[in-house]
């Protein structure tokens, strides 16, 4: 048993299964999806193998150690600058040829490397065979371990290899370049040693300098112009690929049996004309299930909530709790938090559907399908992937914009992402569309998602005209093969989202419910009998004239919209507390809320204007904080907040005023 914790970095191409492997080994539940670029930040987790502790570091996927985008820099810095003992190079064994390029670079570093051949189950399914005896011989005698992260096979063997080989650096030259190149590399290595003394990565640095790599040139400014009679980058890449070809030729058998199903399905799903309508059709289907199955399940939650309200009220009375405390618990906390929990079935179905689309490989195609439209608005289809993530939660979506290489494109994408309707807004749509549009609730909710997309595209066009143009919008994205969604992956994905929702209900919405109860029941003189004398009413009345042109000129709506800044679901819980409705998602609750709002002349048009406002206005505080963190600019964040507020106001005004003229 050793007290030392071995530092292990998982490095590999995008979408090769590093995070799935990391999750399997650490018991973690980091986000995985079947498209490249899901991990944008390095993540650390601990594991233990027979008494040997290991700190595993999951890194963003890269194709080579040349760093252009932010997440590529993260991986390169982790491998080259952090205190990593051993690199576990995760490769997709079903695409060995493409994955081995990064392997060749990692071997050049000279650090201990272990090759984890992931997706061996797919290799077997396709009838391919890999010679796992010859392969290590051709890769400098590094340990080669076949694993399947999805099926959790080969994991102990991998940890065993880490434990026993983490102190064995790669000493052999795996790729031998032409004599001319080897002479130049040796000369540069000598100059590096003379100027900087003995150091790690000398051969790798020399090769990178010969490739004219900007980052390496900055870090190692040595004079090599006499050796650089031409650009050797292409030659070095070609010679590496020549060797990879040799490796593949000797170790991979029956490689011709590629999956053809994917190509057949792609003829429809990524069709140049039908691709976009198919995407909208699939999203419509997602909402159909979200509403129909979700509504079927929510009845059970309503019964449970009714029981809880009754039992709590009786219990509080039995223990002679003060009236104000009973009101706080029953009318404030249970109405607010419980009301939100009844939307859990809808959220559950939405994420099951999104999880299936992600894991099957379809979501990666969305970037390709939308590339034409995104190209016209000055962005690449790759920018659409973070936006798709925004249907779940805007926080990770904003972080996922790191995959974009240009800073301008990244900021544009961050700016557009909040227009994708996140799952927190779903309860608002479900509630108000079912109350005011009972016969077309699903269609109304779907229209809001389409408006969000439409707005993002319009805003992108406008931004494209007023900001600097980025030069390259060519889409380079690896499309994974279609596969049957993995039950475990979907289960983890959905559980994670449900847990997040429950945790939000128990924390943010719990606090928001208390705050709303307090501002509705107190003023400067203490507890009030009449809600119209409360702090909340004063605040709401102040907002009434501002919101009146939108058809939202009721003080309760002003309070609900402000509270929605903590989390968008809070808009719904606020309505519960503001109108004293205990089970807002039940038929009786909806009736009570509808009657309460009708007193103020609030009808379907007002409801639609409210939903449009909620779709477009300032995102929740967590998103705002993430935007500030990712852009490192209060100015950018401030502009976004004000812009979204103004846009929401203008769009709702348009909806209400034009609607009033027409209806």
């Amino acid at each position, binding site marked *: 048993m050793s007290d030392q914790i071995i530092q292990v970095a998982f490095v590999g191409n995008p979408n090769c299964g590093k995070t799935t492997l990391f999750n399997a080994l650490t018991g973690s539940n980091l986000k995985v999806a079947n498209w490249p670029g899901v991990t944008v930040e390095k993540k650390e987790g601990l594991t233990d193998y027979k008494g040997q502790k290991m700190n595993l570091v999951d890194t963003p996927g890269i194709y080579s150690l040349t760093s252009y985008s932010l997440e590529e820099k993260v991986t390169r810095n982790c491998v080259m600058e952090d205190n990593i003992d051993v690199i576990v190079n995760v490769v997709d064994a079903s695409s060995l040829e493409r994955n081995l390029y990064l392997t060749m670079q990692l071997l050049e570093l000279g650090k201990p490397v272990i090759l984890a051949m992931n997706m061996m189950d797919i290799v077997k399914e396709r009838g391919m065979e890999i010679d796992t005896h010859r392969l290590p011989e051709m890769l400098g005698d590094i340990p080669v371990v076949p694993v399947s992260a999805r099926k959790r096979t080969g994991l102990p063997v991998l940890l065993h290899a880490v434990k026993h080989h983490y102190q064995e650096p790669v000493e052999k030259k795996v790729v031998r370049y032409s004599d001319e190149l080897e002479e130049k590399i040796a000369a540069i290595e000598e100059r590096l040693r003379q100027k900087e003394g003995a150091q790690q990565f000398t051969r790798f640095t020399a090769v990178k300098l010969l490739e004219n790599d900007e980052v390496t040139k900055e870090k190692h400014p040595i004079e090599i112009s006499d050796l650089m009679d031409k650009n050797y980058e292409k030659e070095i890449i070609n010679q590496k690929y020549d060797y990879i070809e040799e490796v593949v030729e000797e170790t991979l058998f029956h490689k011709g049996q590629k999956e053809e199903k994917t190509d057949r399905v792609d003829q429809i799903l990524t069709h140049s004309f039908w691709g976009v309508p198919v995407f909208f059709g699939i999203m419509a289907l997602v909402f159909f299930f979200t509403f129909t199955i979700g509504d079927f399940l929510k009845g059970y939650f309503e019964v449970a909530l009714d029981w809880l309200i009754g039992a709590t009220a009786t219990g509080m009375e039995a223990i002679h*709790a003060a009236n104000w405390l009973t009101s706080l618990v029953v009318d404030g906390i249970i109405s607010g938090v419980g009301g939100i929990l009844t939307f859990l079935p809808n959220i559950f179905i939405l994420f099951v559907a999104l999880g299936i689309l992600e894991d099957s490989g379809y979501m990666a195609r969305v970037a390709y399908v939308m590339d034409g439209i995104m190209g016209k608005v000055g962005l690449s289809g790759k920018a659409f992937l973070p936006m798709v993530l925004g249907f779940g939660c805007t926080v990770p979506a904003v972080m996922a914009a790191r995959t974009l290489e240009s800073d301008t494109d990244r900021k544009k994408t961050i700016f557009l992402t909040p227009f994708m309707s996140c799952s927190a807004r779903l309860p608002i749509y479900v509630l108000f569309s079912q109350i005011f549009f009972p016969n077309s609730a699903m269609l109304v909710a779907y229209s809001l998602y389409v408006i969000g997309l439409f707005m993002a595209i319009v805003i992108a066009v406008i931004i494209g005209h007023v900001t600097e143009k980025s030069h390259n919008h060519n889409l380079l994205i690896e499309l994974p093969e279609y596969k049957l969604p993995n039950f475990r992956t979907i289960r983890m994905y959905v559980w994670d989202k449900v847990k997040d929702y429950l945790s939000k209900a128990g924390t943010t919405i719990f*606090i928001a419910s208390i705050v709303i109860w307090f501002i509705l029941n107190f003023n400067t003189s203490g507890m009030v009998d009449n809600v119209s004398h409360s702090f909340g009413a004063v605040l709401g009345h102040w907002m009434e004239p501002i919101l009146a042109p939108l058809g939202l000129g009721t003080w309760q709506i002003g309070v609900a919209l402000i509270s929605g800044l903590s989390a968008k679901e809070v808009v719904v819980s606020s309505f519960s507390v503001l109108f004293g409705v205990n089970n807002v998602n039940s038929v009786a609750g909806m009736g009570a809320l509808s009657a309460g709002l009708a007193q103020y002349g609030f009808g379907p048009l007002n409801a639609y204007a409210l939903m449009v406002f909620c779709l477009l206005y300032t995102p929740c505080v967590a998103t705002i*904080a993430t935007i500030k963190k990712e852009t490192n600019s209060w100015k950018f964040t401030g502009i976004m907040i004000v812009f979204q507020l103004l846009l929401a106001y203008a769009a709702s005004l348009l909806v209400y005023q034009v609607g009033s003229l027409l209806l």
Partner: protein
Amino acid sequence: MITTIFVGILVFGYAAFVVGKKVKDAKDGKFCNCGCGGCTKNCGAKIPEE
């Protein structure tokens, strides 16, 4: 009276705990859970950190 104080402590104690945790998470730059990228260290944490 005693039950009111007891339930009050439970409710407001939990509320104070939640607010404290939110403030700490925000200071650590953590705005969502591990699954959405909120944590960067001790993800999963199969064994306790030393």
